[in-house]
C-alpha cells in the first residue's frame, strides 16, 4: 500500500508506526540471535567458548578462526579450508539456477497463458512429484546418470538440480503469471508477436519480483544441498556443503567450534550476497493501471 498518501500523522498513527518498527526490529533480533551466537563464537577462541556463555562478547576480536576456516582447516586429508570448494559450488549453482529458473518461467508462462489440453493436469502431476522424498531417488538417479555417462560430474549434478528444481520454479512462475491479464497476451498476439517474443517482451519485464524469489529459492536450495552434492559429485567436484560437513565433523582432538561457525558463515556468504543483490529488485510490480476492470 505504498500508494497510500502520506499525510500529516495523528498521534495514534505515530504510536502505531512506532509499534510497527518495534515489532519489526524485535523480530529481526529474534532472527538474528542464532546468527549472533555463531558470529560471536567464531570470534572467540576455543577456551573462551568452553568457559563463557553463548552471548558473551569475545574478550578480543580474533579472526584466526575465519582465516583458518577459509584456507587452513582440514576437510578430509586436505587442509586447504573452504576456499577450493567455492569454485565447485559456483560451477554447479550458476548453471543450475539459470536453467531451472528459465525453464520454470517458460513452463509457468505456458501453463498460465498458452494452455493446451493436459497442461493443467501436467502441472498438478509436476507438483505432486516434488513431494517425492529425495532420498528414494538417489539410487535410480545414480543409475541414470551412469547410463548417461555423467555420473560424478558437475554436469550430472546440474542436471539433477534442474530436474528437481523445475517443479518449484514452475509453481512460482505459474502462480505469478496467473495474475497477468490475458488481454496483454492477446494484444501482443494481434500485434504479431510470437510465443517467445511475447514472453521476452511482455511477460519477462513484469516478472522481476518473482524472478527474485525464484532465484533466491533455487540458489539457496542448490547451494545448501548436501544430499545430492555428496552422492553425485566426484572427489574433485564436491560442493562447499560437503566440505563444510567434513570440516564440522571433526571429532578428534577437540572440536573447534569457532572454526566451524566461521566456516558456516563463510559458506553462506554467496547466498547472502544473492539476497542482498536480488533484494534490490523487489520493486513494486508494474501491472497496475494497464487495463480497465
Amino acid at each position, binding site marked *: 500500500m505504498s500508494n*497510500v498518501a502520506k499525510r500529516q500523522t495523528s498521534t495514534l498513527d505515530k504510536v502505531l508506526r512506532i509499534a510497527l518498527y518495534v515489532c519489526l526490529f524485535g523480530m529481526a533480533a529474534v532472527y538474528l540471535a542464532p546468527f549472533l551466537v555463531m558470529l560471536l563464537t567464531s570470534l572467540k577462541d576455543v577456551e573462551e567458548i568452553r568457559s563463557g556463555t553463548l552471548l558473551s562478547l569475545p574478550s578480543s576480536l580474533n579472526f584466526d578462526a575465519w582465516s583458518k576456516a577459509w584456507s587452513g582447516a582440514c576437510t578430509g586429508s586436505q587442509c586447504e579450508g573452504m576456499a577450493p570448494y567455492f569454485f565447485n559450488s559456483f560451477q554447479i549453482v550458476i548453471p543450475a539456477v539459470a536453467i531451472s529458473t528459465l525453464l520454470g518461467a517458460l513452463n509457468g508462462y505456458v501453463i498460465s497463458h498458452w*494452455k493446451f489440453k493436459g497442461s493443467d493436469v501436467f502441472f498438478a502431476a509436476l507438483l505432486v512429484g516434488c513431494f*517425492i*522424498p529425495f532420498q528414494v531417488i538417489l539410487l535410480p538417479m545414480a543409475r541414470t546418470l551412469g547410463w548417461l555417462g555423467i555420473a560424478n560430474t558437475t554436469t550430472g549434478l546440474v542436471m539433477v538440480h534442474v530436474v528437481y528444481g523445475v517443479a*518449484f520454479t514452475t*509453481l512460482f512462475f505459474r502462480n505469478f503469471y496467473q495474475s497477468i491479464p490475458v488481454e496483454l497476451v492477446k494484444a501482443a498476439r494481434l500485434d504479431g508477436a510470437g510465443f517467445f517474443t511475447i514472453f521476452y517482451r511482455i511477460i519477462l519485464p513484469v516478472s522481476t519480483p518473482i524472478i527474485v524469489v525464484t532465484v533466491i529459492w533455487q540458489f539457496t536450495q542448490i547451494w545448501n544441498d548436501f544430499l545430492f552434492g555428496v552422492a553425485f559429485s566426484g572427489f574433485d567436484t564436491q560442493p562447499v556443503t560437503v566440505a*563444510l560437513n567434513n570440516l564440522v565433523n571433526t571429532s578428534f582432538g577437540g572440536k573447534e567450534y569457532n572454526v566451524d561457525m566461521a566456516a558456516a558463515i563463510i559458506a553462506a556468504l554467496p547466498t547472502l550476497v544473492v539476497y542482498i543483490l536480488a533484494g534490490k529488485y523487489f520493486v513494486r510490480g508494474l501491472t497496475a493501471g494497464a487495463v480497465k476492470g
Partner: protein
Amino acid sequence: MNKNAANAGSGATPAGRPARLSLADWMPKIVMAPTVIAAIVCIYGYMIWTAVLSFTNSRMLPTYKFVGFDQYERLFMNDRWMVALSNLGIFGGLFILICLFLGVMLAIFLDQKIRAEGAIRTIYLYPMAISFIVTGTAWKWLLNPTNGIEKMMIELGFEDFRFNWLSDPDMVVYCLVIAAVWQASGFVMALFLAGLRGVDSEMIKAAQLDGASTITTYRRIILPSLKPVFFSALVILSHIAIKSFDLVAALTNGGPGYSSDLPANFMYAHAFTRSQIGLGAASAMVMLGCVLAILIPYLYSELRGERHE
C-alpha cells in the same frame, strides 16, 4: 480480464479442428517437453521403481525378490515409524501454520514503506542461507537446558525459568518447529512480499473508499487476491516439512531415544544406514501416499477454482 478465455477455449476445441503443423502452434508443447520428459522419467519413473522395491526384500542394494506386503506390515509394526509419522503430523501442521502466519505478517509489515526494508528483509531471509549442518549446532546450544536460553534467563535473574524441551521426549518436536520456522518463515515473507508488490493500486484505493481499514483491506482485498501465492507457499512449506531431514539430523539426531524422528530420517536410516531398502521404499511410499491424500483434493480445487478468476 477474461482469465478463462484461453482455457475455456482450449477445453472447447471442436473436434473438427484441423491438425496444424505450424511450428508456432507447437511451441508451447515443445517448450514444456523437456520438463515433461524429466518428470516422467525422474519423478514418476523413479516413483514406480520405488513402489516396486517396496514389494521386495531389497537390503543393501535393490534386488527383485518379491515379498508382497511384508515390508508394509513390518513398517506399521515398527514403533519408531509410528512415532515418526505422528511427529510429522505435529511438526508439519505447526510449522506450516506458523510460517504462513509469520510470513504474511512480516510481509505486510514490511510493505508499509519501512525505512530499512532492504536490511530487515535480508535479516529475515538469511536463515535460509546457512546450512543446517551448522545452524543445528547453534540451535542445539541455544535450546540446551544447561547452557542455552535457560542459562541466560537464569543469569538475568529469572531463577525459575526452565526450558528443557530438547531433552524432553514429549516436547522435543516443538524444538524442531522452532528451528524450522526460524529458517523458512523469511522465505514465505519474501514470497508474499513479491505478491504484494504486484497488487493493483486502484483496487486498494477502492477498498479505502469503501471504508475498509488497513487491516481489513489486507484481509479482504489484498490477501484473497494473493491466493496463488498462498498456494505456492503451502506447497513449498509442506515440501520442506516432509523432507525435513538435515534439521533432525543436526538438531536432535532423532533423540532423545527416537522421539524426534521424522519419516524422512526413518526412511534414510533404513534405506542407507541399515541396509533395508525394501522397508525404506515402503516408508517412502507411505509418505507419498499421505501427501497425495492431502494434496490432490487441494490441487483439484485450486486448479478448478482459479479458472474463474
